């Protein structure tokens, strides 16, 4: 690139730095968000990798059950016979082999309260061979008796437990234990957010498996010089059917891969969507700001052309300008991304979605990606403006600066209307035909159509508003309205950024309300019980509690039925599924689901997908590797907290002897003293570490609230996009004020007071924000309707509900945000000295 272009560009950038602040901020925020999200993803990946690598560091092979029933992070496999241990030990190349029994156990602190945390409550076996045990004792000693335990240092600190303390662990039945040692995991106080309890093998077998003849798996250390695959082959030859051996390194890779394309993939995609939205909104803001700045420079560009600059030189200068701005904003954004990652982590935790992470990992590659994306987005967003501005005829230098009239195209409104109409029709069609692909694509088309239609909508809305606004504000409103009308394209693109943000917020509000309404409706109709005992929050993680609770509650006078319902994993019709485990007879009393003994109950959604109906026979493979063919006894409307499959407990327990329960649904007998029943149930719940007891209404509310947790996270993620959009409006207005110094001065000279000038700008801000908010809200409600009917038509049974109060609030906040956005430019305009304005130029 030629030196003068570069020099003029860089000088100009410095000279105009105040005007470009808004552009910088848009790039900065968009990239900071992206970098924060990349950082968060990297941190999670790193935490998971480290955790698994530490777990298997000295393990050369693992011997375990060959049946896999769970897909995802939780390795749920059935136990194997302890007799396998001797076979493994005598296999060639094996230096040491240790059996372990695993499960879950919640620790009670010295104050009698459960030690809760951000992860599962793991329990296992203390292994003396340091190569096979990722834990290191830092205080006290290894367990000797079955009632001795070693715990992680984080739990010890939180629960004020020291070597020698006695306490209770729920494993899941309460066990009195003595803490003999405190351990660390790979130098950390805990393994991520999980707690850890290690028994002796005998203790672990007794409390975690309930079977002294079984173990969960066997970890093997090889003789020096024995390769992993030959070790695996040697052990494999000695194993009975249904038991397999895998290499330690291989197991680590598999575990990491499972998490990577399971939960992590979903989580990263989820985060990336919001980074994309923030960048899209930032791009709209950048586009707009740059076009205003370029319009203000038409004369300068024309002068350059008069002086002999070629069109291509002008274009290169403009692109370079955008690239430099993009680079500066992106680098600053990446720097702020670290803080953003930490902030997101905090926000997630605050919303009940805690991530068990230490610190933040930030890779050079991620930093480069964020900077690259920032620069590319900036250049692309400004390209059309740069091309248009570079076409400024030299003659423009000699004539007065014209008002920016970039919306002149006649084809644009027609095209916009066509795309919008086609998109909306497609969305509705997709919703009716329950095709989420059609709905999604058409929804995006609708959005694009509206953006194309923007200037026309804006002009129309400004005219309508002009007719609508009367009274004392008449002149102010009219001048503001005319200002909007002079460059509707500019106002429309400032409003479009807000429209996108608001549409998404409104859409999620509608979907959230619809889900809440259907859950409330469905669960309210299906649940016929009176009380629910549950783990209540994160204390138990996925692990559930002792089935004894159900048995004991059932014995309380006045209790008719106490249905203990658990959660488990099984392969159904070939794929791994999460299932609900319940006694069909008891369940039929607490819910309107009557499958009958030995029969499955299946949600209508799943039944429709597979073409099943009552009486269909379905293969179920259990964790012990055996498969049974069960008839379907009932279909039901899907609802939290039930999963899509309910497996009868009598069949289940033959394969899973140690099934835990996650809730006990209580039905009282007619005429029972409900107060007394509740008191008795609460007292039992207290003996198991303070389980939560809820009445019917609270149970429904809690379930609905649980379903909305993710929604709150979504709102936080969208908040940034909305903030960027509002800043964009503020920025556009500030530039517009700078452009109109003379007009404002004239207004003041002919008698407009400062307050009037301020109100004129505020009106303009309000019109812009209202345009974005109202169109965004309408669009969002429409999308929400389309999505919820797409799912309801596919058997989800969703109700379409519009949260009017929330929607009104969104519109109100949008309008207020407009006023906030307008306040600074308005104040600046009001402060203008009329004489300075007259003298300027």
């Amino acid at each position, binding site marked *: 690139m030629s030196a003068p272009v570069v020099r003029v560009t860089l000088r100009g950038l410095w000279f105009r730095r105040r005007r470009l602040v808004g552009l910088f901020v848009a790039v900065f925020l968009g990239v900071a968000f992206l970098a924060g999200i990349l950082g968060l993803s990297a941190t999670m990946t790193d935490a998971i990798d480290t955790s698994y690598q530490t777990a298997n560091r000295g393990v050369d092979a693992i011997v375990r059950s060959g049946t896999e029933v769970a897909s995802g992070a939780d390795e749920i496999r059935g136990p194997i016979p302890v007799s396998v241990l001797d076979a493994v030990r005598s296999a060639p190349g094996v230096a040491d082999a240790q059996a372990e029994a695993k499960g879950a156990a919640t620790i009670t602190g010295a104050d009698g309260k459960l030690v809760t945390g951000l992860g599962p409550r793991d329990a296992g076996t203390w292994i003396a061979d340091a190569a096979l045990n990722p834990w290191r004792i830092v205080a006290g000693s290894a367990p000797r008796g079955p009632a001795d335990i070693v715990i992680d240092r984080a739990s010890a600190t939180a629960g004020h437990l020291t070597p020698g303390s006695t306490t209770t662990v729920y494993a899941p039945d309460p066990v009195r234990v003595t803490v003999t040692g405190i351990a660390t995991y790979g130098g950390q106080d805990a393994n991520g957010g999980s707690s850890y309890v290690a028994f002796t093998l005998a203790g672990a077998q007794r409390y975690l498996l309930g079977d002294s003849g079984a173990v969960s798996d066997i970890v093997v250390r090889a003789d020096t010089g024995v390769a992993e695959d030959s070790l695996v082959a040697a052990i494999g030859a000695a194993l009975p059917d249904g038991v397999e051996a895998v290499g330690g390194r291989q197991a680590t890779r598999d575990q990491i891969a499972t998490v990577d394309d399971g939960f992590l993939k979903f989580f990263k995609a989820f985060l990336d969507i919001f980074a994309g939205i923030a960048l899209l909104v930032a791009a709209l803001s950048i586009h707009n700001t740059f076009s205003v700045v370029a319009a203000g420079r038409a004369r300068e560009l024309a002068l350059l052309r008069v002086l002999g600059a070629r069109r291509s030189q002008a274009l290169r200068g403009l692109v370079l300008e955008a690239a430099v701005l993009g680079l500066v904003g992106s680098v600053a954004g990446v720097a702020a991304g670290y803080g953003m990652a930490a902030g997101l982590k905090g926000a997630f935790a605050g919303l009940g979605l805690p991530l068990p992470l230490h610190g933040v990992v930030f890779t050079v590659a991620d930093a480069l990606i964020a900077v690259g994306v920032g620069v590319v987005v900036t250049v692309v967003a400004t390209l059309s403006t740069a091309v248009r501005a570079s076409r400024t005829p030299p003659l423009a230098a000699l004539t007065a600066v014209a008002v920016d009239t970039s919306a002149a195209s006649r084809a644009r409104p027609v095209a916009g209307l066509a795309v919008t109409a086609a998109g909306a029709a497609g969305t509705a069609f997709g919703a009716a035909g329950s095709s989420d692909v059609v709905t999604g694509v058409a929804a995006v088309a609708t959005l694009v159509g509206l953006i194309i239609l923007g200037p026309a909508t804006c002009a129309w809305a400004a005219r309508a508003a002009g007719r609508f606004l009367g009274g004392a504000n008449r002149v102010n409103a009219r*001048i503001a309205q005319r200002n909007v*009308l002079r460059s509707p394209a500019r106002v429309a693109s400032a409003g479009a950024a807000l429209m996108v943000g608001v549409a998404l917020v409104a859409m999620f509000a509608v979907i959230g309300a619809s889900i809440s309404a259907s859950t409330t409706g469905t669960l309210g109709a299906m649940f016929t019980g009176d009380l629910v005992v549950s783990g209540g929050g994160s204390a138990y993680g996925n692990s559930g509690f002792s089935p004894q609770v159900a048995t004991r509650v059932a014995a309380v006078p006045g209790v008719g039925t106490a249905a203990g319902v658990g959660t488990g994993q099984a392969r159904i019709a070939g794929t791994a599924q999460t299932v609900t485990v319940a006694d069909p007879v008891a369940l039929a009393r607490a819910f309107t689901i009557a499958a009958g003994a030995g029969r499955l109950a299946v949600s209508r959604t799943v039944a429709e997908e597979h073409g099943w109906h009552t009486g269909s026979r379905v293969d179920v493979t259990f964790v012990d590797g055996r498969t049974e063919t069960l008839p379907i006894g009932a279909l039901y409307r899907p609802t939290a907290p039930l999963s899509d499959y309910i497996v009868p407990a009598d069949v289940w327990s033959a394969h899973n002897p140690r099934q835990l329960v996650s809730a006990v649904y209580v039905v009282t007998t007619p005429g029972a003293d409900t107060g007394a029943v509740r008191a008795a149930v609460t007292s039992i719940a207290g003996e198991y570490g303070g389980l939560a007891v809820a009445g019917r209404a609270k149970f429904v509310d809690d379930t609905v609230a649980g379903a909305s947790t993710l929604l709150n996270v979504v709102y936080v993620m969208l908040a940034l996009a909305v903030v960027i959009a509002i800043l964009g409006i503020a920025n556009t207005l500030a530039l517009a004020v700078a452009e109109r110094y003379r007009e404002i001065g*004239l207004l003041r*000279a002919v*008698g407009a007071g400062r307050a009037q000038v301020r109100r004129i700008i505020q009106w303009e801000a309000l019109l812009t924000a209202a345009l974005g908010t109202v169109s965004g809200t309408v669009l969002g409600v429409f999308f929400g309707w389309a999505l919820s009917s797409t799912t309801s038509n596919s058997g989800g049974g969703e109700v379409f509900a519009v949260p009017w109060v929330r929607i009104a609030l969104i519109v109100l906040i949008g309008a207020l945000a407009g006023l906030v956005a307008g306040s600074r430019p308005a104040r600046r305009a009001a402060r203008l000295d009329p004489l300075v304005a*007259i003298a300027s130029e």
Partner: protein
Amino acid sequence: MSQTRPSGRQATLVADVAARTEAASKVYGRGGSAVTALDGVTVDFPAGAFTAVMGPSGSGKSTLMHCLAGLDRTTAGKVYLGDVDLGTLDERRLTALRRTRIGFVFQSFNLLPTLSAAENISLPAELAGIRLDAARVDRVIDAVGLRGRSAHRPSQLSGGQQQRVAVARALVTDPDLIVADEPTGNLDSRASGDVLGLLRSAVTDFGRTVVMVTHDPGAAGYADRVVFLADGRIADVMTEPTADRVLDAMKGLTR
């Protein structure tokens, strides 16, 4: 340039004073870089008269106009509109005064580009919260010869037409004082003649008071009096000016 002057002007010569300054001074900046734009100017602007203000570039004409119109404040001395001392008014009162009692016509950029001619004309009144009746706006538009153009935007009007709209706007609120700073500075002689004729008739036919800055001796010929400024001081006051006498006086000032 020997146009017949309307005969009403003698009668208004000794009437009361619409605006005046008393030892008005205006200093821009401080210390070594201070510029004295007005240096103890004491001058009366009789009501119902057309006063032209002339002088070399930089002599303080615009500054004087800004002070008279309440757009700027003097650093010493007083400015009166009728018997109101502008120095005692706060920002809010000055603004109110500007929109009801003063009309202003600048050399250019007098109109909001987004408003039509008629809307520009009624702007000061509307800012004051007064609804002007349409008949009145029409009368003023007729008076400035723009019937049929009232719905046009400034960009659709010629420079001369724009200045006539500006004059109409200055007239419509019946102000006590109309201040015009080189209103014909950008116009050719025909368009200038139209605008000056309008200002003249505002005085003669409607009894308004006009103070106008001009560099054109011919334009000064429309006035009842000419006040000459040089270096921020009153150099001379001439009554019954003609273009030739004004030209002579100007030569004396510039040396």
